[in-house]
């Protein structure tokens, strides 16, 4: 028997119990997978998360990203140096330059074209706008202006409206745009298409036409010179006006001393004479009925 407890000078080829167990543990598939995949994955996630959770680190990363983005965005290839506005009159172009809050030169990365488009389209005089950045660093705006169709006078304020009734611009004096027809009255802007139809239908009366008046926000009066009025019904006003024009063509009624042609009731058109004419008519009637009074 060998000496108990003495150090054995010969090397023992046998593994110690501990190393034997460790090796067996290492050969366990689950443990092996855990150590070779689970542990590195866990430590990466843990330490990465711990590192990223520090506010200073987050700030540094954000700064770094901003710096990189800036260095790319500020390359001369991406700089916008010029704004070109097409299709807008000088006044409108000035307005557009005023509302667009960009001070060039600016990187094209910092331009929010959609927001700029929305801002420009909020201008009354602009129907549509098309923004793009042309090579060469030019911000190109292709503007479609609203075309004024009528002048609307309401409570002493003159405004130009387009064919759909949208405001285009204010007007200081009627005589500036005397080529446009005039409409008057509250709520007239809501019925501009109808007014345009009426004005087109009143083309034979053009020399005498003064304008259209919206009555009670529901129907139109056509005002001619000599304070003559054609009162149109609420529905189918164009047909009624055409009847009056036809009547005028046949019997020249409008050249006579009438105050108003009332077409509101289609079955019963009514003429109102001017006071002087009425007096004349009464005189004639009296003369016709004999000299009973004299």
């Amino acid at each position, binding site marked *: *028997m060998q000496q108990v407890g003495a150090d054995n000078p010969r090397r*023992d*080829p*046998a*593994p110690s*119990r501990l190393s*034997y*167990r460790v*090796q*067996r543990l290492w*050969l*366990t*598939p689950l443990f092996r997978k855990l150590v070779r995949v689970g542990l590195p994955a866990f430590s990466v996630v843990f330490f990465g998360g711990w590192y990223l959770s520090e506010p200073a680190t987050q700030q540094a990363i954000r700064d770094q990203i901003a710096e990189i983005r800036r260095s790319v965005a500020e390359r001369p290839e991406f700089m916008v140096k010029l704004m070109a506005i097409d299709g807008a009159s000088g006044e409108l172009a000035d307005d557009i330059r005023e509302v667009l809050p960009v001070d060039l030169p600016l990187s094209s990365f910092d331009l929010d074209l959609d927001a700029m488009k929305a801002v420009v389209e909020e201008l009354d005089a602009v129907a549509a706008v098309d923004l793009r950045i042309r090579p060469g660093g030019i911000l190109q705006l292709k503007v479609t202006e609203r075309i004024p169709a009528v002048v609307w006078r309401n409570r002493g304020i003159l405004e130009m409206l387009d064919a759909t009734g949208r405001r285009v611009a204010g007007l200081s004096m009627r005589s500036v745009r005397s080529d446009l027809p005039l409409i008057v009255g509250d709520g007239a802007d809501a019925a501009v298409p109808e007014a345009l139809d009426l004005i087109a239908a009143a083309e034979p009366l053009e020399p005498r036409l003064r304008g259209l008046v919206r009555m009670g926000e529901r129907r139109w009066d056509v005002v001619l010179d000599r304070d003559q009025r054609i009162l149109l019904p609420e529905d189918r006003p164009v047909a009624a006006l055409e009847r009056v024009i036809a009547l005028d063509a046949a019997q020249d009624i409008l050249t006579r001393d009438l105050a108003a042609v009332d077409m509101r009731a289609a079955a019963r058109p009514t003429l109102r004479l001017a006071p002087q004419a009425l007096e004349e008519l009464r005189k004639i009637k009296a003369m016709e009925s004999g000299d009973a009074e004299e």
Partner: protein
Amino acid sequence: MIDLYQSQRAMRNMRGAAMQRGVIAILDVGTSKIACLVLRFDGPERYRETDGVGSLAGQSAFRVIGAATTRSRGVRFGEIEAMQETERAIRTALQAAQKMANVRVDHVIACISGANPRSYGLAGEIELHDTVVTEQDVARVLASCEVPQFGEGREVLHAQPVNFALDHRSGLGDPRGQIGNRLACDMHLLTIDTDAVENLLYCIKRCDMELAGIASSAYVSGVSTLVEDEQELGAACIDMGGGSTGISIFIKKHMIYADSVRMGGDHVTADISKGLQVPLATAERIKTFYGGVVATGMDDRERIEIGGDTGDWEHDRRTVSRSELIGIMRPRVEEILEEVRTRLDGAGFEHLPSQQIVLTGGASQIPGLDGLAPKILGQQVRIGRPLRVQGLPQAATGSAFASCVGLSLFAAHPQDEWWDFEMPMDRYPARSLKRAMKWFRDNW
């Protein structure tokens, strides 16, 4: 007997668990070497290249994926003598094999070569309740065998039903379903010393392994070395190990006798060491390189340097002739073979129809043994090598690994033993819940 039945059954269950996991270790704790194989079970289809019957007639359900051998320490006559030393040696082998297999193994099947095996032939007989033999009847007839008084401190290692007889028809392999009145059986019981088994168990447990089976090394060597017709017609396998020589006799593919002679190759080495005054390691080397048992004229002229490191020139330059060496080895080998002959005679080997004797084990590699053995054991002697199993390294295919290979076959296809049959009903403890369950299962 009930305890034994339960513990053996538990080992069988453990083996089932190992099969399910697919890997199992084979451990042969011998006197001169400890060998460990790691087997992987994947079913027979996995490694089959062609159609038809697989290699080894379906025995190749497993594959050796790890093998390791280490010099044994602390083992004498096939029994563990120094527990710590043996435990370390077992650990070395197990670790190396697991490392080679690159898989963790939890179950081990071991074999034991020494420990004074003793064979008993048991006979039992019952009247059948019904005319048809059922599984229960087989269990009853096995239970009815008269168990001999094998004494204190002995443990049953194998209890294999060898033969069934129904009325006057004997030699039945499987009596189930046959019709008759009286069922008789012969059982072969092998007992060994309990201490040896417990020491081995302790060492294996210290290596964090579960024992999934234990077998006699003589038996498993016979399983691997004897070819099928030898097992059928009757043959003896002599496993000449380092410290003990195992004997097993087979007939009709059943082991009917096992014994061991407490002499082996290590005694030959010790004789050389004493006779030539050389250390054991040198003696072992000389034995393996120049050993033999039949001297010829040539051997007188062949001088062997036996060396030494005393510093004395005369002493360190000694030479012996090979015939001198043979003269030392031969008497011991003869003694072993004669002892084997005595045991075989005692077992009645000469009454078997065929008396084939197969020598295997490490000591059977002595040159000239095939000339010497017939003179003592009779004419039908051959030197046997174990079956080739799949994946076994070339270094582990020699006859020294007969019991390892046999143990692998044993692990793959264990023979039915007594505890593989169901326990007869009347042996269950009274009022057992199991019994009630069984009644329900049988009747509903």
